[in-house]
């Protein structure tokens, strides 16, 4: 289907059409000094005229000199909180005559319509699809939420200070995995979106709202904006041979150096759109008659994460940072066929001490070029568990 065009004024009808189909709209909005994802009612809820300015350990909002609805990059939230929620009950158990009965948790299909999904975020969803749906077991909760979701992607027309999606091959242009993809254009007298249709469902929805075919000129203007973003990346990461370099760097002195700065707070893992780790919690009511099992997001930075009887395997902060970075940029490739990083920059922005994954990976790469790849290194013996 050729590229279509939607005027800003038609956005309200677009939202209404989605709601009519039973979707709950989730999208960007201003809350407590950051742009987060929450339930949206109307286009005016969008962060009109706001832009985020990001750097290492820093996030600020600035007023733009236009009324762009998608003029920011990414905030502390990602769509993972809706597809793979921070807390979820897995099942309940009730004491009975013979022992206990188990009650499965009903699957929720909240029918989310995600408004404003960036290219890097679509890649992150694709990566979590592989984790939760791609193996011999599937997560029914993730599946129900993902299958029911309607995705309205938005191309980035401006990159942020911590962005490096161009290095990761995940953006800034959305390629697949959406129902509709918008590019926002603020022309002197006109505020409009060019629209690419990515699915049957997207085409059907578009029929219900006023739109027209975009002209060659309008398409070219939109493409130009996305191309500009590609040239504005605040950071970059050289992925060539990175897996092999990191696999050969378990004993690299850089880990000690990072550990002196890293607080092991786990912020990076919480904001990361691909990090999927969880823990479980078993609770009972006061009478001890009912129990339930909850699942919560967890972080490889917590000391309990690797606990086995006798002590934690990754007892030191440096082992935990090494685990995180090596998983993201190296072992993920062996596990799921792609890097675990989509270059969104969130971990850099929300790190309280401004640790930069691209700088750390580069430091390890560069020091190896000088000293040569060290494969043997010292052998430490771990305490007996």
């Amino acid at each position, binding site marked *: 289907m050729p590229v279509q065009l939607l005027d800003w004024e038609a956005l309200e009808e677009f939202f209404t059409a989605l709601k009519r189909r039973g979707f709950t709209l989730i999208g960007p909005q201003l809350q407590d000094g950051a742009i987060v994802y929450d339930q949206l009612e109307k286009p005016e809820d969008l962060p009109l005229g706001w832009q985020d300015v990001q750097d290492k350990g820093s996030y600020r909002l600035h007023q733009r000199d236009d009324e762009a609805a998608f003029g920011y990059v990414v905030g502390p939230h990602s769509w993972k909180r809706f597809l793979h929620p921070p807390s979820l009950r*897995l*099942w309940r*158990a009730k*004491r009975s005559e*013979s*022992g*206990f009965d*188990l009650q*499965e*948790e009903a699957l929720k299909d909240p029918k989310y319509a995600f408004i404003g999904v960036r290219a890097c975020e679509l890649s992150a969803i694709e990566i979590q699809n592989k*984790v*939760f749906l791609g*193996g*011999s*077991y*599937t*997560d*029914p909760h993730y599946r129900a939420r993902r299958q029911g979701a309607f995705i309205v992607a938005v191309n980035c027309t401006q990159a942020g200070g911590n962005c490096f999606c161009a290095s990761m091959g995940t953006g800034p242009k959305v390629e697949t995995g959406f129902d509709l993809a918008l590019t926002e254009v603020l022309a002197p007298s006109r505020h409009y979106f060019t629209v690419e249709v990515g699915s049957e469902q997207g085409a059907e929805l578009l029929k219900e709202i006023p739109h027209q075919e975009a002209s060659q000129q309008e398409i070219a203007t939109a493409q130009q904006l996305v191309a500009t973003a590609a040239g504005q990346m605040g950071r970059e990461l050289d992925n060539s041979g990175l897996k092999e370099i990191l*696999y050969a760097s*378990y*004993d690299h002195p850089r880990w000690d150096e990072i550990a002196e700065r890293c607080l092991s707070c786990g912020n990076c893992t919480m904001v990361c759109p691909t990090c*999927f*780790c*969880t*823990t*479980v919690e*078993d*609770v*009972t009511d006061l009478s*001890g008659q009912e*129990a339930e*099992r909850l*699942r919560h997001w*967890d972080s*490889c930075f917590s000391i309990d*994460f*690797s*606990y*086995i*009887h006798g002590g934690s*395997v*990754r*007892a*030191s902060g440096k*082992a935990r940072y090494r*685990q995180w970075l*090596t*998983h993201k940029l*190296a*072992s993920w490739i*062996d*596990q799921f066929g792609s890097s675990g990083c989509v270059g969104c920059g969130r971990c850099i922005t929300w790190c309280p001490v401004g640790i930069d994954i691209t700088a750390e990976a580069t430091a390890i790469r560069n020091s190896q070029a000088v000293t040569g790849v060290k494969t043997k*290194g010292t*052998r*430490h*013996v*771990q*305490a*007996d*568990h």
Partner: protein
Amino acid sequence: MARLTNSPRFALDPMLPQRFVVERLWRETADTFTVKLEPVDKTADFAFAPGQFNMLYVFGVGEIPISISGDPADNTALLHTTRAVGTVTKAMSRLKPGDMLGLRGPFGSNWPVLEAGGHDIVLVTGGIGLAPLRPALYAILAQREKYGKVVLLYGARTPEDILYKKELARWRAHFDLEVHVTVDRATESWRGNVGVATTLIRRAPFDPQDAVAMICGPEVMMRFTTQELLRRGVDSSRIFVSLERNMKCAIGFCGHCQFGPQFVCKDGPVFALKRVEKLLNTWEV
């Protein structure tokens, strides 16, 4: 390696346990017990391969990975041997016949029992590590003629901590099985070896060019054992180890069991040493 991971039991939610009832629970040593389970759903089968494990849930307390310790050929008895060390294992040790447990599984890879046919077999283990190896021993002894020499090298803390003592004696008497036991601390009446299991490797009667080794024990013990076996000339592709990591799901979702690129729950727990040798000798992986 044969995999039995995609049991139809998990048609719905792989995190939902099946209910099992404690048929019997008996002490093996002061801190170790074996529990025999029966499914509530009588049609549930619990076929497993030696080396696989289940996730056992104690009502309201928690869920933990425990290896299956019984005979894989006996589909009337589902056994787990557990050392009571913490919250869940202690709660489990207090269960009585008729009490209920939740169970998910079987999970994971298995010992290469079939592939090792025609070879000498060396099993090296310490403490509770004998439990995950016992199913392999059952399977090997059931077809004893298919193997060369079969040697079990076992280290326990004290003579009182030796697991499956009577069974080991019976096997030694009835099958062509060499059992070498060593203890860390001897008691008055102990006439056997004293020291760690690795010291037994040097004198153990097997052909290093031919033998297949299977090792299960604390990580530091496995490190020394593999080094000793390599030194004797056993190839790293014929040495197998069973790794242990924290596990919250057993199905590749929680991320806790990662060991470099491996998920111990689904790629392991049994690995060919060749695949994990470098990481096994790296600190805090």
